[in-house]
């Protein structure tokens, strides 16, 4: 195929990634990298560079809609971003030193681990758990909030804040290393570790995703991971897809989102490992 066809294929794939990303809080990166490397044979470094761009595009593109709806918790976001941005710089530095196949295998393993974590957790989704009073670190850092539902505002308070902070640092490292938004890890940390309502988790994660990715963007750019010809269709496709997806969030039910999320990640994880190990 010539470059034009290649670009159009990338654009179409990115549309889908952006749509899925804004619905599930993933950021699109987990679809973009396997699409580019497995389906199109793109070198992993260019792929993660384009992916990082898509992550920021999804995050910023759907941001305005989320903030208006009142789900995002800015204090939680900013507080945890201290961890994610520091981790991202560490991760991006690692990415410049690891060989391509190693990054691919790490990518695949991380995807599979995410699925394992999602499916093996026995606690009910936080949206169904009763609201608890805030205490400890959540109270001292004023991390509690409320979100709108059909029956009025519902209060919530984060739990296990230090654990959430630690997981976020790891999410940052992954983001910098793999060019992903680490939306899966972030949502897991917010939802399972900190017990925030699911839609608060996804929207707050979305806010953090873009900021985390921006932290590693400079390093990626300087090393040439982000190449214009590839980043262009990815960014535009993901933006378009995420704008459409953002309109569906309020009407979507958390359980469906979880399953779509887990299934997509599993399939992609297997593909990445297969590719990285040259099977």
């Amino acid at each position, binding site marked *: 195929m010539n470059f034009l066809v290649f670009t159009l294929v990338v654009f179409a794939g990115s549309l889908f990634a952006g749509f899925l990303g804004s619905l599930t809080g993933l950021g699109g990166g987990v679809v973009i990298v396997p699409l580019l490397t497995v389906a199109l*044979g793109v070198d992993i470094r260019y792929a993660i560079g384009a992916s990082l761009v898509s992550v920021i595009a999804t995050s910023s593109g759907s941001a305005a809609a989320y903030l208006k709806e009142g789900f995002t918790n800015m204090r939680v976001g900013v507080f945890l971003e201290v961890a994610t941005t520091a981790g991202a710089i560490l991760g991006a530095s690692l990415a410049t030193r690891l060989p391509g196949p190693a990054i691919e295998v790490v990518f695949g393993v991380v995807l599979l681990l995410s699925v394992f974590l999602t499916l093996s957790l026995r606690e009910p989704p936080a949206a169904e758990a009763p609201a608890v009073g805030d205490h400890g670190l959540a109270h001292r850092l004023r991390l509690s909030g409320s979100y709108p539902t059909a029956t009025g505002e519902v209060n919530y308070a984060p739990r296990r804040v230090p654990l959430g902070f630690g997981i976020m640092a790891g999410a940052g490292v992954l983001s910098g290393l793999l060019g992903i938004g680490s939306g899966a890890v972030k949502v897991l940390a917010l939802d399972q570790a900190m017990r925030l309502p699911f839609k608060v988790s996804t929207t707050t994660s979305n806010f953090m995703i873009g900021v985390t990715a921006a932290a590693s963007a*400079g*390093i990626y750019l300087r090393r040439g991971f982000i190449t214009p010809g590839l980043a262009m269709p990815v960014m535009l496709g993901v933006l378009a897809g995420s704008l459409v997806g953002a309109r569906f969030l309020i009407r979507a039910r958390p359980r469906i989102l979880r399953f779509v999320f887990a299934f997509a990640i599993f399939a992609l994880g297997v593909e990445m490992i297969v590719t990285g190990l040259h099977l």
Partner: protein
Amino acid sequence: MGSVLRYGVVLAAVLVAAGGVAYLFERWDYAEHYRMFVGSPESLTSPAAILRGALALDPASLIALGLVVLVLTPVARVAFALLAFAEQRDRLYVILSLIVLVVLSIGLTGHSL
């Protein structure tokens, strides 16, 4: 704040789209599929060089400039959060936002650890 963010994304998209169309116009028939990693040319790896190229209407530089603007949108979000916290006299979160901005600035210089 939402409208600044939106304008930033729109500006980035316009730059990338404009540069993209020109880029495709030049290369639509090439066989480039990015299979081999060769890094990027000097002209696209630093903001100063990108700006120079964009002013000269080089397609790749225009795209790169759009990408830089895109990268700055999340940074703007943190800056706005900082302003909102300042307005609420929330000193703790002004400091936390500042820390995040400092880390972001370090990242944006591009020097890895």
